[in-house]
């Protein structure tokens, strides 16, 4: 026979263990460090409350040229997952952080080192020999891929899948969150009625295959194309100029045409000669908008705008947190696309 106080003690101990383990479980949130704010926002949508997600870039700077600082080492030291854009975007600052952070988990090649570029559709992958004579060329392709909403979608899927492998206990939550993020993205891309009627994945497939217009014709009349795609559809083929070759993904997805970059070669500042050539060709093509990031000097673009009639400089953040109206990844795209449509309308 056990004495009653022993039973009580046992129960109390059991309860204590239970409460303590609950407490541990509750406190155990996953620490995720991303290189850019867009990745951080997408990751946050997937993990919800399960993870503490922070980004090294804050969205306002040129992600090529971030300088390493001690606080990054401190962040990387405790990170359980590292998510990067890849394609050499972080080449100038990732290696010293990973070297000095004393964190095995997040080193290149480890399961917790997630390179999102592995899952996206790249552009500008150089063919043949690459030399620095061509400017800041990235041997693996143009790394600004997050400006294509489809790549945002692919990134989200990839991050959710990788996180699901790392934390199988949360896989179901990640999947649910992913579905609602994808749905939100699809709704913004094509409009709610169309997504509800056809389904996002199918719409993307039609869009990719170039059969979207054709298929839409077969749908009942009241289901209309909306969203970003609907907003920019009237401007398909319209030429747009950019400062850096960073907007190509956006232009290509919405079938706008790239009329040229103000930088003669990626990362090389505009020269007077190049600007002169551009102003001639812009005149011929009827370019109305120069799109550029806030961190580049607007002088060259303004010079061109002063020379040509009807040419507007549109300064837009191309990263989450990079400026007004770019609070999240979807809002950032929302802002760029509506501003672009507004500028092209007149």
């Amino acid at each position, binding site marked *: 026979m056990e004495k009653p106080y022993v039973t009580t003690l046992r129960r109390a101990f059991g309860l204590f263990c239970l409460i303590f383990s609950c407490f541990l479980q509750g406190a155990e949130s996953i620490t995720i460090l991303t290189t850019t704010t867009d990745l951080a926002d997408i990751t946050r949508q997937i993990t919800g409350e399960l993870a503490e997600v922070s980004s090294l870039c804050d969205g306002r700077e040129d992600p090529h040229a971030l300088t390493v600082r001690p606080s990054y080492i401190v962040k990387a030291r405790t990170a359980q997952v590292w998510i990067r854009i890849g394609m050499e975007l972080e080449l100038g600052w990732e*290696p010293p952080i990973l070297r000095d952070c004393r964190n095995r988990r997040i080193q290149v090649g480890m399961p917790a080192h997630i390179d999102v570029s592995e899952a996206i559709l790249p552009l500008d992958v150089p063919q043949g020999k690459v030399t620095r004579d061509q400017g800041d060329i990235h041997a693996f392709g143009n790394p600004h891929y997050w400006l294509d909403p489809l790549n945002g979608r692919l990134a989200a899927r990839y991050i959710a899948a990788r996180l699901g492998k790392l934390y199988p206990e949360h896989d179901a939550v990640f999947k649910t969150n992913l579905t609602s993020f994808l749905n939100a993205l699809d709704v913004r891309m094509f409009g709610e009625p169309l997504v509800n009627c056809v389904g996002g994945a199918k719409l993307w497939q039609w869009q990719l295959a170039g059969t979207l217009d054709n298929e839409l014709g077969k749908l009942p009349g009241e289901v209309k194309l909306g969203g970003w795609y609907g907003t920019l559809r009237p401007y398909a083929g319209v030429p747009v100029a950019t400062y850096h070759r960073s907007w190509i993904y956006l232009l290509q997805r919405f079938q706008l*045409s790239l009329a040229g970059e103000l930088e003669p070669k990626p990362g090389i500042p505009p020269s007077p000669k190049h600007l002169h050539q551009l102003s001639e060709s812009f005149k011929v093509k009827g370019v109305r908008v120069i799109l550029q990031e806030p961190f580049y000097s607007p002088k060259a673009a303004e010079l061109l705008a002063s020379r040509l009639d009807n040419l507007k400089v549109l300064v837009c953040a191309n990263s989450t947190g990079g400026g007004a109206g770019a609070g999240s990844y979807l809002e950032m795209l929302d802002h760029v696309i509506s501003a672009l449509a507004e500028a092209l309308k007149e």
Partner: protein
Amino acid sequence: MRQTHCLRLALCISFFALLSRLPAQNSSEADLRQQLQLLQQQIQEMRKEYTENMNRMQAEIQELKARSAAAPAAPVTAVAAGQDATRLLQPGPGDQPPAEEAQAEDLLERFIQQHAAPLLPAKMAESLSLDASVVIDAYYHRDDSREGISHLKEHISGFGHHHHGHGHQHGVIENGFNLRHIELGLSAAVDPYFTAWTTLAFEHHEGVEVEEAVIQTTNLPWNLTLSAGRFMSGIGRLNRQHSHNWDFIDTPLVYEKLFGGHGVTETGLQLTWLAPTPFYLLFGMEAANGENELISNSIGGDELPDHDGPRLWTAFMKVSPNLGPRHDLQLGLSWLNARNQEQHDEDHDDLPDLWLDGYSQVYGVDFVYKYNAQRAHGHGDFTLQAEYFHRKKSLQVENSLLANDLIGHHRLDWQDGYYLQAAYGILPRWRLGLRWEEVGLRNESSFPDGQDADFGTSNRATAMLDWKLSEFSLLRLQAGRSNYHTEEGRQKAWELGLQIQVTIGEHKAHDF
């Protein structure tokens, strides 16, 4: 082109046919599994063929692109070709059962994978390759001193210049064109336990010097890192920076006069610990053999006792509070203690006649503030940086040919110096920098014969303007006014330098 098109068509039809059979046969699970296996096989085969096709098509797309680029305002469509394949992938429009949504998602993913696979280059190269880079650094120098600026700097009073017979003079700056060493840097991960890098300096007329050859652990517990080999000591701030990372053409006088042209670069062991604090806090310790002419020299031989290594010990601490994305503050403290031996030529007959043995001790403090304007190419960025070092040498006369009675007497030296520099990004890629420096604020010696001496202070003011044409090339103009207290009296000089520096090979990431 037509051939590949037909092939794709056939593939897609077979794929679609397979898919359409799926829902009809979902009566038994085993059947479904079989079907899935078959499907997987089919997909594998298809992907293989598709990859080949896509590669071929990619070339064609490039050709087409090149052709269409000539036409004005053509829409950008890199992945347009080959996309019509999906036309056959999807079932016809109409009512969509909910299960098909998940299927559509998978279908989309597969379709995209097929697109991406041939576009993505191999990822393996990144981690397996040996990263190599070469820095070439040349400059034009002009000064108005009579015997050359190197001679002046060497004869700054109090700090002493000791030739130990091997006639090795570093960094002699000549009027006219100068080539600094060619720096070859190699680095790679060794295995899951170590990473390693080496920096070789090829000096014109002098052969190769190993600046760094470090084997570093990557896997130690408790935030520890152990490095072995030849390394640039972690004391101070500039000490562990290679010359291509300096903000000015030359190193500050305090480094040159206290540690020599290469700073404290030693062979030994370094242990650092990154404290688990919410801000950056690093502690480090080093034990090295001590081969620095100015602070840790081992001569041995008949006149002096032999001391086994390690003869040089350091300890340092670095701290950096989190100040948000725009501000950055770093503070450091350093300490160094080393066995030191000297031989002097008091009667100037080119033969040593006085031998000393003892210790050197160095204290240092460093400070950096950085402002990040978050504009392109460093425009508006500001850096303020300062370092102070104090060196004490405490030596005892071991032997003297000129005065036997000096044996056992002490010679003590106290010297210090600091520099304060600022750099500001006046335009994208352009920086303006100013540096003010003084050495010998304390410049005292107590000689073995009981005499004391107090030498004067030397200073220099330098301005520089540099232009980073790209990440890989830099032009720099530098002008300085120096006021040296030398053994031959106070001497002033104007110094002018024009530097070009390029990096070829791997992109080098910069440390903080």
